């Protein structure tokens, strides 16, 4: 039982980074981005290129790709979403769906369908209170907690973070208070890009690297972001943990291959009882 709960914690932790990215992007751009899954896949393959093909250590390749991927997303936004900025969230969502297909298949075009892995030594687990933990899971927990703290610090202490929250809170007022929204949107994409790159690597470490790896997490990531309250980073973190633990524990009751049903039920319940999620603010209509 305890081991399943811990497994759930690990699954949840992996979901935190993409959930943070989704919440950040939703806050500022006001639409759920369906390309998040394939972005993680593409980032993971870029890290694979550096780590396995060029032989760089995983940590350095992840850092390099994280920064580069942030810039790449800015460029993609400029070409894809910027022209559609004023066109309502449905158009943006459909564009993000199209983008998702493009990114996933770029990875498939370059690396084919065979499963691959990063060049890291797999180690036997170490035991703690009869729970088995392995090195990758430890790294995952440390990395995502650090990411959460960095995000918290950024959003509360740093001007960029405050500005991002301001744009999310009231875009028109932000303009009139002197905030250059385009610049803030670029920063948001950059930070989301880093989160998604690291998220992609964590998934790649946990399981095999294959083109559909990112999109298989999509429903769980959205469930986490919605449970936490779209727009609230702390909510996304807590939401991800809850989704992870609940869906793993549920496998003791329902057959494991229906595990994807759990995030879906969570979304449905949230929408009925508390649409703004645990920490979100009621969605003000402009």
């Amino acid at each position, binding site marked *: 039982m305890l081991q399943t709960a811990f497994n759930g914690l690990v*699954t949840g932790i992996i979901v935190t980074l993409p959930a943070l990215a989704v919440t950040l992007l939703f806050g500022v751009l006001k639409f759920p981005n369906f390309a998040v899954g394939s972005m993680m896949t593409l980032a993971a393959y870029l890290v694979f290129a550096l780590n396995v093909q060029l032989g760089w250590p995983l940590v350095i390749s992840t850092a390099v790709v994280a920064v580069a991927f942030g810039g790449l997303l800015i460029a993609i936004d400029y070409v894809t979403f910027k022209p559609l900025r004023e066109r309502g969230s449905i158009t943006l969502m459909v564009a993000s769906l199209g983008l998702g297909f493009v990114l996933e298949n770029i990875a498939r075009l370059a690396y084919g369908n065979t499963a691959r892995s990063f060049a890291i030594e797999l180690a036997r687990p170490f035991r703690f209170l009869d729970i088995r933990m392995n090195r990758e899971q430890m790294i995952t927990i440390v990395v995502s907690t650090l990411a959460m703290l960095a995000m918290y610090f950024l959003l509360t202490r740093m001007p960029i973070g405050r500005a991002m929250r301001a744009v999310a809170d009231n875009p028109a007022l932000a303009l009139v208070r002197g905030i250059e929204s385009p610049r803030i949107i670029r920063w948001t994409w950059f930070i989301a890009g880093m989160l998604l790159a690291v998220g992609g690597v964590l998934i790649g470490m946990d399981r095999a690297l294959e083109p559909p790896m990112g999109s*298989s997490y999509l429903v769980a990531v959205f469930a986490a972001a919605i449970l936490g309250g779209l727009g609230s980073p702390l909510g996304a973190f807590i939401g991800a943990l809850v989704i992870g633990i609940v869906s793993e524990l549920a496998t003791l009751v329902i057959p494991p*291959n229906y595990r994807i049903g759990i995030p879906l039920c969570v979304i449905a319940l949230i929408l009925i009882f508390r649409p703004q999620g645990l920490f979100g603010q009621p969605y003000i209509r402009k």
Partner: protein
Amino acid sequence: MKKLTRRKVLKRLGAAAALPIAAPFLNLAHAQGASIPIGVALPFTGNAGAYGPDMAEAAKRTAAKINSAGGILGGRKLELFIEDSESSASVAANLSQKFINVHKCQALVGYWGTPEGMSSRPIAVQNKVVLMVSSAANAITEGDTQGYVWRFQMKATDWGIVIGRAVQRLGFKNIGIMGLQNAFVLPIMKTVEDQMKTAGRTVTGSLIYNPEQPSYRAEVERIFGKKPEAVCCFGLLPDFVSIMKEVYRGGFDSKVIALSIMADAEGKFIEAVGPQVAEGIRHFQPMPDTSAPGYKKFLKLMGAPDDRVYLFPPNTHDQIAVVAMAMEKAKSPMAVDWSKQIIPVCNGPGQNIDDVVDALKLIRAGKPVNFSGAGSTCDFTPNGDQLGRGMGHWIIQGGKNVFVEYAKP
């Protein structure tokens, strides 16, 4: 990606250039000299994407060999139309329609996965065209196929029998079973389970998982958590890599028995998980009898080192060979005629031949032939199932596949 030699590119360009121009005339000019079209549907993408390329290469070289030896039916050349079935049923069905209606093929070969075979079956039978698959699910050859559907692979249940016997021989008292939700995996799992029960061994747990799951932690925990002596795991490469990483890092030490299409896949599994995770994994796969002369000739045809084990390419080689021989014997490219000649050519009675060109010479000379190909002895039951196929049994040691035994059902 395989490199295309200049000669081959020119040949394909030639064939390809001919298509759009020749297409409208193709079906009219069945006269002397026109080429005989054969449709080849293989998975180049989707979850079976890893197996298509080599199978296509085998088909191309076999056709080239037959053509360079003078072709069949008085010098007519075989022309292959190779398409990607994307491991999907609807794509395969569309392809089959295209082969039959556009390219006027009377023979559809390749068809690696069960979905592709199942969706193309009604189309082939309805249009009275021969369909040759290399998928394992029993349902492909069940029911009335009027002699148009032939399987160049072992039936799924036979896989289960061989593996079940091996498990008993290896002396495992209790085992866990987990498998991918897939048409050919389910019959294998069921047969292995039944075998264990009849042999009085206990099955500690059995579950099915989905393709492309975000994580397999729960499944590994439930099956390996009960610490059975061995776990049979049936599925495909992507899920097996994730599962074995989870098993190794979870500190589980049950022995693992799997299929070669997941634990080898032309070396891609070991490449993905590394030698120490793969250590001790046993894997089975229907394989050609590598000692058979037909297989040795096939290796030379492929220009591969003689210790190389091809799992599926020999099937497409045999398929093309059987099509050619049956047409030659029936002296007609129409499936209605040559489909009845498949059993005589393959099962005999007749002179035992393992080279398609020599066999064609004998057939032209009117002599009976019993062809045994690269993938198997090519003996068939009337409803299209293949007999005499054995399974190879390997164990991964030090990052290498060590051959253990060759077992027949």
